[in-house]
């Protein structure tokens, strides 16, 4: 009670302050409001009062009001329009500060009408005589573009930005570069491409503008492809002086560019001489604060993987300092283990040995692993590495377990060479409690059983097999034990050959990045991508998934909540990569379908192609209402809606029926290239899954690129999510040289062939011809798995919805690019979802959909759309695995 009255009192007091005739009192009030806002309190109720303070000469007060306005305007669109006039007047103020402030703040108001009003003043500000106003207006163009790309393009603002690249003021130029590079990523046709003449404009601007402008220019430079060697030389020469700057971001961006352009020279000698010059500044960055050191070290890991010789003489700089934070020590270890060579291995082994004794677990363990890597990489030094490890065991360091695992790997690389280690390890059996270490030791004991006298192996084997066959409940393990048993009873010699056969060799390469990945990572030096060692597409995603059970955040118990969230994060991370990759692959197919279906939606399609403007994650909107109540409401509404609404609804449905009809009729999937001639040794396959009636067919075109005829014998699918399987294995067709034949293979769904643990629609396919078996993976379009038009009414929907327990409900939230809720709806319908009904609640348009799979699973969807903030919140309930609706949804947006 007290808290409420106190808060009310505070609110009243604030209102009083905000309405005070004295300006300094009002300022005091606004200050307090902004303070509360910072603390995360909701002060949206004071909107009108704060707005009242906007008319003022006091810049300090004005700025505070704008900070408030930028945050709350999108929740109060109607009232926000009222302030447009003040903004427009301010953009004509004689004081350039006020003009800039107005145009800067106006762009941050995400209300459509405000955007329209903004165009006129923005055009004036872009041509303002004061550079401060111009540079601010440039950024305002980006704001407008993000809110309404067509408007920005139609009004010619993008062209204005290009013109401003040759502005007299360097800040304006660097902002224009920043703005254009950002906008460029969301356009289908890039409007900003550096050409030879622009290159020199940028170089000149770079010498004038501040550090940050230089970084932008350097970053956009990486995308430029020089016309000839001479130009490349000139670029590198222009870049070299930047290596002596004290700003780490400039230095790293310069290093990226020099390495990148020097490679283009195609002249090994020139490359070496240029690349050598990046080394000293790179080393000096390691004297900076820890954060910069970390970034530099993570980048160096990439550089030394490609060019180890560049830094082989600098090895001592990567020795760990005792007071380095752990993340720095770990990065240094990575570098040292790549740089290790026959020349420096003794020095490094001594370092690694000392590190292995450290208390911090991840560092000590990684140091032990580093010793193992030395052994695997350098055959000559392997003996010394093993001795070092044995010494460490004898010294009884804390992490003997890790040594066991490392020695196992050394054994795999050099079989039958270092059995002496087994004895020492066995002396330390009592410390092994981690499954990994135990497994490693048991493996070694098994492999080297002959060297252990008196090991009583037969007895042991007997009891292990008995235990696994009689007491074990895991069928897989039991079966395996039976298999070994039978093997042993048949003939011991054969079983030895089977069980103890040669193992796959292990090499240092297993720990390095694949060349193409490395090349991409190197092109991202200094960006966050190079710090994570992940390619941008793997963590900058178009659809940001926010998966979490609805129930969890309705739960009041906080402790429990926290645990849950952590679990889910793990889950999510596991799925994320897979899903993202899928998504990437699928965009093109999606677009093609859209083109077939609704030509008038071209704008949307264009946006679809560009990840940045596509859906973005926002966190959840609070959904306080209980689901049960929600459904009742929904029931009532169906019966109680007034006639007017009802009519609208009916009309809507009529229209929908039409579109449903249109979209479904001729939906043939375009064929994708599945197997290239190179992969298929002369055989090329294009194909797609097609739905005819209610049957699925795999339509393929087989092309023979060989000079002689080819015989295709069989096709087979691996187990996949839905159990798709060709009805017959044999094809037996002969493809003449240079010709293509088309085949249509009927593929029914077979439950026994489905694998629900697969979290992707992808199917692995094997095809056999007279030359051998070829494998490829293809990603069918999800639509083929949906029944075209299931008969489903509202009653059924409510019934099914209630059947599924609440805790099986999942939600997904993202920002969509559509600006009208109808087009979202159409999109779903076009993709075989059946529309059930819709209603409106506050700012949300709520739609209900259902999709029925051929496997007779249902996906029930409640789509909450807030078109003003372009937020889309989806709740789904499904009769089957969660991943299915998940995959489906990812394909839509």
């Amino acid at each position: 009670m007290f808290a409420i009255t106190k808060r009310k009192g505070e609110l009243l007091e604030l209102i009083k302050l905000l309405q005070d005739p004295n300006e300094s009192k009002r300022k005091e009030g606004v200050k307090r409001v902004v303070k509360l806002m910072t603390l995360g309190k909701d002060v949206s109720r004071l909107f009108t009062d704060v707005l009242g303070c906007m008319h003022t000469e006091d810049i300090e007060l004005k700025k505070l009001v704008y900070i408030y306005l930028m945050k709350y305007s999108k929740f109060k669109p109607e009232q926000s329009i009222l302030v447009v006039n003040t903004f427009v007047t301010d953009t004509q103020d004689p004081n350039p500060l006020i003009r800039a402030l107005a145009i800067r703040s106006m762009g941050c108001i995400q209300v459509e009408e405000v955007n329209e009003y903004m165009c006129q003043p923005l055009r004036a500000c872009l041509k303002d005589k004061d550079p401060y106003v111009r540079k601010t207006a440039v950024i305002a163009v980006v704001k407008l573009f993000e809110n309404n790309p067509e408007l920005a393009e139609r009004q010619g603002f993008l062209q204005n930005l290009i013109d401003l690249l040759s502005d007299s003021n360097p800040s304006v130029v660097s902002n224009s570069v920043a703005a254009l590079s950002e906008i460029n990523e969301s356009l289908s046709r890039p409007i900003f491409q550096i050409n030879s003449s622009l290159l020199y404009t940028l170089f000149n601007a770079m010498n004038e503008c501040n550090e940050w402008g230089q970084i932008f220019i350097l970053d956009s430079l990486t995308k430029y492809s020089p016309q000839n060697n001479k130009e490349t030389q000139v670029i590198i020469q222009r870049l070299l002086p930047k290596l002596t700057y004290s700003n780490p971001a400039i230095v790293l961006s310069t290093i990226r560019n020099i390495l990148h352009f020097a490679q283009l020279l195609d002249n090994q000698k020139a490359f070496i001489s240029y690349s050598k010059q990046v080394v000293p500044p790179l080393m000096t960055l390691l004297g900076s604060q820890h954060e910069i050191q970390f970034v530099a070290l993570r980048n160096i890991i990439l550089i030394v993987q490609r060019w180890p010789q560049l830094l082989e003489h600098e090895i001592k700089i990567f020795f760990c300092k005792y007071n380095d934070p752990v993340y720095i020590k770990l990065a240094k270890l990575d570098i040292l283990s790549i740089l290790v060579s026959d020349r420096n291995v003794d020095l490094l082994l001594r370092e690694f040995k000392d590190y292995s004794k450290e208390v911090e677990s991840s560092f000590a363990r990684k140091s032990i692993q580093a010793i193992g890597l030395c052994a695997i990489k350098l055959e000559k030094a392997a003996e010394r590495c093993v001795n070092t490890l044995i010494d460490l065991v004898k010294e009884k360091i804390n992490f003997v377990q890790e040594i066991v695992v490392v020695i196992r790997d050394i054994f795999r690389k050099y079989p039958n060479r270092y059995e002496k280690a087994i004895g020492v390890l066995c002396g330390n059996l009592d410390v092994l409690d981690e499954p990994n270490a135990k497994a490693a030791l048991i493996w070694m004991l098994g492999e080297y059983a002959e060297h252990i006298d008196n090991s009583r192996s037969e007895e042991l084997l007997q009891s292990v097999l008995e235990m696994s066959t009689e007491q074990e409940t895991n069928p897989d393990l039991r079966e395996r034990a039976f298999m070994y048993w039978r093997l042993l009873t048949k003939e011991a010699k054969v079983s030895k050959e089977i069980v103890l056969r040669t193992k796959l060799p292990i090499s240092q390469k297993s720990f390095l990045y694949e060349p193409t990945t490395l090349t991409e990572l190197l092109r991202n030096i200094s960006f966050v991508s190079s710090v994570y060692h992940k390619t941008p597409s793997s963590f900058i995603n178009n659809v940001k998934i926010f998966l979490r059970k609805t129930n969890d955040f309705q739960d009041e118990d906080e402790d429990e909540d926290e645990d849950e969230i952590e679990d889910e994060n793990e889950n999510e991370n596991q799925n994320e990569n897979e899903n993202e990759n899928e998504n990437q692959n699928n965009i093109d197919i999606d677009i093609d379908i859209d083109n077939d279906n609704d030509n008038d939606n071209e704008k949307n399609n264009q946006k679809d192609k560009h990840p940045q403007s596509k859906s973005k994650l926002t966190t959840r909107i609070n959904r306080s209402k209980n689901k049960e109540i929600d459904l009742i409401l929904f029931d009532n509404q169906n019966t109680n809606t007034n006639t007017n609404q009802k009519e609208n609804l009916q009309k809507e449905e009529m229209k929908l029926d039409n579109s449903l009809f249109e979209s479904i009729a001729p939906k043939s999937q375009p064929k994708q290239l599945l197997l290239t001639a190179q992969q298929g040794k002369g055989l090329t396959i294009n194909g797609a899954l097609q739905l005819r009636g209610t049957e699925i067919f795999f339509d393929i075109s087989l092309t023979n690129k060989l000079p002689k005829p080819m015989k295709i014998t069989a096709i087979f699918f691996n187990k996949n999510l839905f159990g798709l399987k060709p009805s017959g294995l044999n094809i037996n067709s002969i493809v003449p040289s240079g010709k293509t034949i088309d085949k249509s293979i009927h593929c029914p769904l077979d439950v026994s062939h489905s694998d629900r643990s697969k979290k992707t629609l992808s199917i692995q396919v094997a095809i056999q011809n007279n030359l051998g078996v070829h494998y490829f993976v293809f990603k069918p379009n999800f639509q083929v798995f949906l029944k075209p038009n299931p008969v489903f009414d509202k009653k059924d929907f409510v019934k099914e919805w209630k059947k599924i327990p609440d805790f099986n409900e999942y939600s997904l939230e993202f920002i969509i690019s559509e600006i009208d809720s109808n087009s979202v709806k159409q999109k779903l319908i076009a993709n075989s979802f059946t529309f059930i009904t819709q209603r409106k609640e506050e700012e949300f348009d709520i739609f209900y959909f259902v999709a029925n799979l051929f496997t007779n699973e249902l996906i029930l969807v409640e789509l909450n759309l807030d078109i003003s903030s372009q937020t889309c919140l989806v709740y789904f309930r499904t009769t089957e695995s969660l991943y299915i609706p998940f995959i489906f949804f990812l394909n839509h947006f």
Partner: protein
Amino acid sequence: MISQFVILSPRGNNLILRNFRNDIKEDTSDIIFRKLNFEKISDFPPVFHENGINYAFIKYSELIFFVTSRFNISSSFLFDFLDSILTSIKDFCGVFNEQTVIDNFGLIYELVDEMIDYGAPQLTETKNLKKFIFNETKLDAQELKNLKSNKKAKKKSKKSISSDAKKTPISGVFAGGGFQTVEEIYIDIIEKLHVEFSNNGSLISSQCNGLVMIKNFLSGNPILEIGLNENIKIGSPKDFQYFQGIFLEDVLFYHKCDSSKFEESGVLQIIPPEGEFILMKYRVSETSMNLPFQIATNFEEFGQNKLEIRVTITSDFEKAMWASNVQISFLVPEISLDVKCELEGNDITQTAKFQKQDHLVVWKLPRFNGEREESVRVTLTLPLQKKNYPKQINAFQETISTNTQLTSANTLQLIKGKIGPICLSFDFPDYSVLKMKTLKTTDQNRSYVPTRWIREFSKSDSYFSWV
């Protein structure tokens, strides 16, 4: 493009939160706070991503500064931005702590909005920013008092005063405080030494990273001419065999600094920006470095279960100089039953103690003069050896191997393996490779002599010896 900038209090409250792009919800503070306080990872990496959001953070005086972004953005730029925002706040507020942030939040919002617009960085230099800032700096009574006492303290000891002592906000924004603007400039040469010795006292690796930092409170646009050591070469000693001067492996300069005469005469020219900035960073070549201290360790066994460790530190510099706050520390094995520390010599300012909970021996010397040798004797009492393997394993072990039993010969080796490196930390005023020789300020419009505070200083970064 940066999405958010946040200053977080040690308790996890937002002191400043600016959402530039509105594409990320405001619960990022919770996420970062939880990561830093509840994750099991020690030293959480300063840049990471979660749910498609990139985070970069730094810590300063218990506050967490962080930015978020959705883009594959330059990570060094993120830290650079955080640093420069911190520097600007320090310039404008003089001091920097939680209270100043709370008192000056309007000013900080103003600053942040000038420094970043919709995620794109804008103005950086304090001088340029000043034109656009309208809030006045507010300092509470205590800070004002500190400021005054600082001024007095400065007059007393001119030698080696740190630029940190200067806690005055830059001129112009502090009209209400009653201070006159003083024409003064602070120049710090700070060198950090990293040295690693092997257990026999030989040098394994050494590095010396230096920087020249300037705090400028001069008005107008004076040209600063700084003369450093004249005989400097940039590059590797291998390339200049007969050169006798100082080798710097590499030098980075402030981007507006004219360094064309640096190698020839050691002179740098610059029109300094107002407030704090780093003029240059450099790396001294191993051959030009001086190592102020040598570390030696000796072991001796007494009786069945006592081990004595004798650590000797020798200073290798002029008698008249001294290092301060010298501290030597190392870990001893957890199994030690008793640890006794005994100082040699009778210097009463020294202390040597065993900190039981950390298993750490700490030896402190407030002042370490040149050409001296100081020692400490640490005696460990260890448990008597027992074979306490479980029966079964013991039998198993005997069948397999013959030489895993402990013998007294490898006891010392075993215990030594558990003694951590001997770590040395110290501050060393007036000790640096790079020296300031001349400083000229010229202003076309007037002639004046500003107050100049110059400090040369070395400190240990990681100075240790393995045992």
